[in-house]
């Protein structure tokens, strides 16, 4: 282990295929056309001095350290901005060049504090390095002249500080904010010597548009923009590559360490999902891992009304096992079950479902994907044949028109959102389908060509109307359909969507989208070249979630937008490993690799490997578990890394179900909402404390590497293994990678995956097997996984959740950039500085009607329950629709959501709830109960610590 400093070639690689041969300092070098002289030199180990160039950004040519001499050319061209030419003869070191470089460096240092020894960048500073490289020995200008040494420091951002006295005005931060992040928060202010970096209009970072992605900090060659953790702790001594545990982008990070302490998380330049970019969560919000709220000792209690008791691991495991055995003995084999986590590794999810099927002997396993992307799994499997997105993230860079449906990438999948924005700035067209004016609709240098601002719950009508236009206006790629799809299903579908009641004119009343706009959008998608659809929970979390997914797949097939780069159907997965947990057999009806439990051949493979007999009947889904708990037939639950008490709809119903169980085992980092109903608490390990793999939204399997020992002594899979052993089913894995080997043996799309391969390649996208040893970036290339693509009919059935005079508004939910889902992690970091509470967004018209002003407390009441939040009056909403995030348990967003769900997969209809909103002066009854209950549970926890 050592600290890896990435090689910096100075300028980005050229994509050209043609190559050019030239001579640098007498060495011949051949590079792709369009490569800079600087990069060409670097590729043969000649490092030309530089400060403003870095290979993650386009060249800029401002520092003038990198000047070279070219035979036959006048002057001293900058090597970072000069492209190679055939036969060019370059000299990178001459006396004259040495003079120029020393002269430039002397100027730099004449306006720089002589602080190196006490500077946070000491030992890792490009300015310092360059002063050494060019041999600066003296600053003859003295230090009395005009300077910036007294400039005030800006420490407003919780994670990094800005010390303008050390700024060399190289604009790397400015360019990173523009090119990489796409936020344009950091302009240069002033001219000449007075040029300074200035967030917003002379604002502090926290008051500016800055989203704290850290790209500028990453790009800064000096101590000017610096992580506060480095200022506090000093430079790291070693680094380890791992994968972010937040969203489904799955960014690769270098954890820079001092011993077992993380100094900072640096996005990995070689990361294939993120290419060195990051967001505020992955980059900075890792402090939760060592937060004092972490519970590091196992605990048990007989009843949830009793204080917790700290016990040894053995005692806790044995107690849990004995309880499950007791319950199964008394109430039958099917009275217990488990939930796998989309936060844990593939190996851990695999092990939990294995425990259920082998040790519990039933199929009662489910996962939180139930509540988010289960319709994706169903819809894509039915139509295309595989329950996953079809593309890589990079594919978007080849798209000509991008359709975003019910997703908010700049908040939910920020790093991919930035990539998408980059492509849009390059000229790709954009269609946004969303009830809300999300940032993509209009932000710096990005504007949607069409925003179809539909009414929540009308996705199917809209998607079918798009199909209607494509079919009736003759925009179908008939050749593609004839070759690649089922002729029969296509014919039926074509007739179906052509029916007059699917026309945009007919659906306009339901969707609220003007027919002409919808027609124009449909034409654009069908005819603009490569069309790619990205969608999120705004599609799936509906009573017709699966139908919309199917409708999207239909659109892509009909327009020939599947099977190459730049196109495709792309679910933006919520959690880091939601794809993985689904792949790993976390659903009650599917064994790992999406193979149905009723298939005897499949079962027998697993039975042979596991040495048990498997049930042929699917087990209980989460909502069924709750129902069974309430009717007394389901009594024990092993819940790993998931917080159903907060995240699942209809909170009161969930709480009642949990209370009805006899043994709830929660394995988690914190005493989460579900743990407040638990009898056994098994401390979990954060992603920093274990080794395994995550699979992101583009099917990319990336390594998670342990950078510190588990705080409570065990990685999560070890705990599952102990529990299994105590239940009487032996497991003897020595490491996460060993479990991966078993998965690779049993899952056909994983046959070629191993940790060794991940060490070599960094990451791979499944299917990865004999026919694709290095993985599969784009799916369905020559044919669909299921053979011929299948069109399916998508009749619009309005949700039962209707507005009425009592509940006249529609509530829809979503998340924001700085917080992550239930917030258990991000709420325990300084990300609260951006979002310290959930708020209800409401259109000024609706607010005015109710006498609600910005910041007022409002009660939100549905048929299900009531909660109270503060209001934000916002034009982003459409009249009649209100919106909230769900990151704080006390917000009780799910107290109001209903138990409606997707017809195919039971995915809850989070996105549509009829509500009334009224000004109030106190919190809701549920919230008061919640607070009392929380206080009680915390005192139970405190007693455990005391005891």
């Amino acid at each position, binding site marked *: 282990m050592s600290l890896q400093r990435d090689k910096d070639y100075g300028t980005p690689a050229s994509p050209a295929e043609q190559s050019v041969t030239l001579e640098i300092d007498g060495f011949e070098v051949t590079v792709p056309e369009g490569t800079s002289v600087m990069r060409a030199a670097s590729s043969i180990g000649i490092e030309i001095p530089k400060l403003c160039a870095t290979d993650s950004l386009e060249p*800029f040519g*401002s520092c003038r350290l990198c000047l070279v001499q070219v035979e036959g050319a006048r002057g001293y061209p*900058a090597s970072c901005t000069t492209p190679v030419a055939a036969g060019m003869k370059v000299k990178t070191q001459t006396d004259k060049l040495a003079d120029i470089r020393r*002269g430039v460096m002397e*100027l730099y240092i004449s306006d720089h504090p002589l602080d190196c020894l006490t500077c946070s960048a000491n030992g890792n500073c490009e300015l310092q390095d360059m002063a050494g490289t060019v041999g600066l020995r003296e600053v003859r200008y003295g230090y009395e002249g005009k300077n910036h040494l007294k400039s005030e420091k800006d420490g407003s951002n919780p994670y990094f500080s800005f010390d303008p006295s050390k700024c060399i005005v190289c604009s790397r931060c400015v360019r990173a904010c523009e090119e990489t992040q796409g936020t344009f928060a950091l302009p240069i202010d002033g001219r000449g*010597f007075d040029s300074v970096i200035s967030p917003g209009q002379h604002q502090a970072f926290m008051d500016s548009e800055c989203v704290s992605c850290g790209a500028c900090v990453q790009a800064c060659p000096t101590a000017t923009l610096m992580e506060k953790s480095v200022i506090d702790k000093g430079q790291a001594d070693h680094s380890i590559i791992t994968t972010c545990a937040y969203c489904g982008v799955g960014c690769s990070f270098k954890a820079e360490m001092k011993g077992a302490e993380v100094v900072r998380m640096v996005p990995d330049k070689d990361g294939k999902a993120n290419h060195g970019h990051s967001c505020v969560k992955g980059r900075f919000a890792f402090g939760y891992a060592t937060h004092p709220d972490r519970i590091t000792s196992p605990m048990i209690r007989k009843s949830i009304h009793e204080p917790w008791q700290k016990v040894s691991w053995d005692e806790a495991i044995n107690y849990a096992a004995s309880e499950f055995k007791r319950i199964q003995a008394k109430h039958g084999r099917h009275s217990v079950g488990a939930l796998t986590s989309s936060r844990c590794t593939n190996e851990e999810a695999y092990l939990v479902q294995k425990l259920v099927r082998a040790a519990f002997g039933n199929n009662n396993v489910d996962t939180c994907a139930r509540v988010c992307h289960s319709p994706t799994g169903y819809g894509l499997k039915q139509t295309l044949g595989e329950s996953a997105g079809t593309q890589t993230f990079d594919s978007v860079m080849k798209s000509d028109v991008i359709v975003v449906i019910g997703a908010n990438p700049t908040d939910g999948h920020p790093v991919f959102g930035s990539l998408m924005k980059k492509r849009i700035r390059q000229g790709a067209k954009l269609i946004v389908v969303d009830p809300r004016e999300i940032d993509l609709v209009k932000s710096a240098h990005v504007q949607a060509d069409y925003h179809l601002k539909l009414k929540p719950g009308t996705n199917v009508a809209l998607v079918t109307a798009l199909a209607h236009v494509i079919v009736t206006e003759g925009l179908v790629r008939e050749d593609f359909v004839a070759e690649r799809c089922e002729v029969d299903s296509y014919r039926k579908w074509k007739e179906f969507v052509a029916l007059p009641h699917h026309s945009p004119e007919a659906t306009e009343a339901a969707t609220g989208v003007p027919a002409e706009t919808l027609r124009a959008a449909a034409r654009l998608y069908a005819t603009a070249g490569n069309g790619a659809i990205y969608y999120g929970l705004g599609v799936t979390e509906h009573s017709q979630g699966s139908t919309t997914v199917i409708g999207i797949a239909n659109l892509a097939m009909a327009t020939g937008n599947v099977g190459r780069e730049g196109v495709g159907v792309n679910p933006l997965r919520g959690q880091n490993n939601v794809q993985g947990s689904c792949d790993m057999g976390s659903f009650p009806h599917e064994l790992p690799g999406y193979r149905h439990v009723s298939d005897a051949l499949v079962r027998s493979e697993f039975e042979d490997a596991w040495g048990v007999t498997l049930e042929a009947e699917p087990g209980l889904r989460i909502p069924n578990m709750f129902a069974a708990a309430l009717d007394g037939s389901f009594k024990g639950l092993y819940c790993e890394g998931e917080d159903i008490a907060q995240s699942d709809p209809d909170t009161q119903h969930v709480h009642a179900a949990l209370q009805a169980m006899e043994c709830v085992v929660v394995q988690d980092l914190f005493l989460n909402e579900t743990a407040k109903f638990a009898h056994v608490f098994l401390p979990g390990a954060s992603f920093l404390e274990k080794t395994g793999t995550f699979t992101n939204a583009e099917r990319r399997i990336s390594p998670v590497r342990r950078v510190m020992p588990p705080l409570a002594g065990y990685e999560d899979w070890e705990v599952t293994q102990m529990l299994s052993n105590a239940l009487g089913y032996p497991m003897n894995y020595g490491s996460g990678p060993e479990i991966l080997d078993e998965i690779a043996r049993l899952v056909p799309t994983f046959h070629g995956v191993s940790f060794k391969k991940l060490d070599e390649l960094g990451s791979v996208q499944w299917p990865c097997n004999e026919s694709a040893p290095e993985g599969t970036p784009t799916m369905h290339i020559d044919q669909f996984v299921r053979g011929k693509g299948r069109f399916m009919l998508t009749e619009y059935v309005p949700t039962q959740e209707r507005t009425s005079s009592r509940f006249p508004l529609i509530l829809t939910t979503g998340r924001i950039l700085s917080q992550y889902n239930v917030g258990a992690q991000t709420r325990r970091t300084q990300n609260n500085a951006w979002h310290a509470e959930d708020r209800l967004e409401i259109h000024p018209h609706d607010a005015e009607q109710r006498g609600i002003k910005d910041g007022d407390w409002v009660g939100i009441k549905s048929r299900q329950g009531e909660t109270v939040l503060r209001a934000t009056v916002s034009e982003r909403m459409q009249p009649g629709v209100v919106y909230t995030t769900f990151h704080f348990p006390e917000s009780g967003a799910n107290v109001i959501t209903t138990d409606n769900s997707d017809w195919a997969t039971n995915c809850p209809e989070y996105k549509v709830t009829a509500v009334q909103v009224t000004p109030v002066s106190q919190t809701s009854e549920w919230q008061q109960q919640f607070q009392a209950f929380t206080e009680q549970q915390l005192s139970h926890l405190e007693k455990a610590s005391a005891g």
Partner: protein
Amino acid sequence: MSTKIYVPCDSSALSLGAESVAQAIVREAAARNFEITLVRNGSRGLYWLEPLIEVETANGRVAYGPVQSGDVAGLFDAGFLGGQQHALALGPTEEISYLKKQERLTNARVGITDPVSLDDYLAHDGYKGLKNALTMAPAAIVKEVTDSGLRGRGGAAFPTGIKWNTVLNAPAEQKYIVCNADEGDSGTFSDRMIMEGDPFVLIEGMTIAGLAVGATQGYIYLRVEYPHAHKNLNAAIAAAHQAGYLGSNICGSGKAFDVEVRLGAGAYVCGEETALLESIEGKRGMVRFKPPLPAIKGLFGQPTVINNVISLASVPIILDKGGAHYRDYGMGRSRGTLPIQLAGNIKRPGLVEKAFGITLRELLYDYGGGSASGRPIRAVQVGGPLGAFVPESQFDTPLDYEAFAANWAVLGHGGVVVFDDTVDMARMARYAMEFCAIESCGKCTPCRIGSTRGVEVMDKIIQNQDKARNIQLLRDLGDTMLAGSLCALGGMTPYPVLSALNHFPEDFGVDKTSEAA
């Protein structure tokens, strides 16, 4: 019969009272029942004689100047409508020796016509170049310009035909013609005179450029302090449109070209071509690196011709009379004429358009009449604030790009600013550094920090601190800026600074003999 009287509406004449003179003439004529036609022409460029008014007589135009409104009644009394004698009478305009000896190709109509009258323009050979161009293949137009030997008059003297050829050969759906009318050099006014005095010639030149390279849209990036030019350009554009000289079907040829005026951002550096493009795109006027050249990737990333006003305004006559005609003027590799602008401490400031080859001495004494103060001329700065100071010993150098370069001097945009023997050249050097510090866009280090340090070093030299060491530092800094700057603002500031030091070391308190450049 009505008498034609010309009173210039050029802003230099206006600033000297031309407007009230015009009003006085109208008043007096009405009072005396004389029928007159008042024409507001451009300036003849004889600035010490402005407001210079002319009367059309049977023997041609007769000039009077400088005229103030109080002189008008007397002029009428003297019978100036008949071209009679008066204390302010200058005789037939064309015979004034300052004008007579000039070779006005580019400025052929300036001061003669009504600037915004298309008829007047057409009557004076206007749009003949375009008519020819419309019959030619694009490459042939480019070749004519290449053959003329025309080099960019904005400062860098790059051959215009070669630049156009690059744009012609760059494949693109959209190309642009951008006219650099930012005219930021102190003491220069030739761009303004053309735009105020003969805007059609610029529009015609741009239209020809558009035909030559396949561009359909032109922009004139106009210095914001030029409101009169703005007005006249817009009027001329509207008239050209009306008459089908601009628009989607130029003279019925089926070819399209349009021109739009964009106002500058008011910074000197916005005259630098790439900063100018950024500014038109709505961004900060920051210099871009080259390559890619604007000819390949210019405005909005498209191939773009960017030329100075004079470069473009010289094109119509080249297309009218042929490249060879233009080429016949000049010397060496400096072909055609250069509108020289005499300013500063000079008795007869103004515009002198002459073929290359005339010497500075002829300009300063035969035209300029020596210094205004009557003291000996000690130095002239040629080529704007980034041009070198030329000492008396070099006044016999012919105006020629290469001859000047051999003296480590430049011609630039043709501005000549004169200083007599009271000038302190160390102060001038400091001023040049300060100019750079004030105008620096701040992108590149040598200029951003160097110019400010340069002022500080000059201060130390002036204050006699550690002189030898600071002189050496100034030279080293000069080398760094010269070799290292991204654009010519930082890259040429050492010209005035080091030329002052080299030619006038005594002003820096150093021994002349100890200083070899």
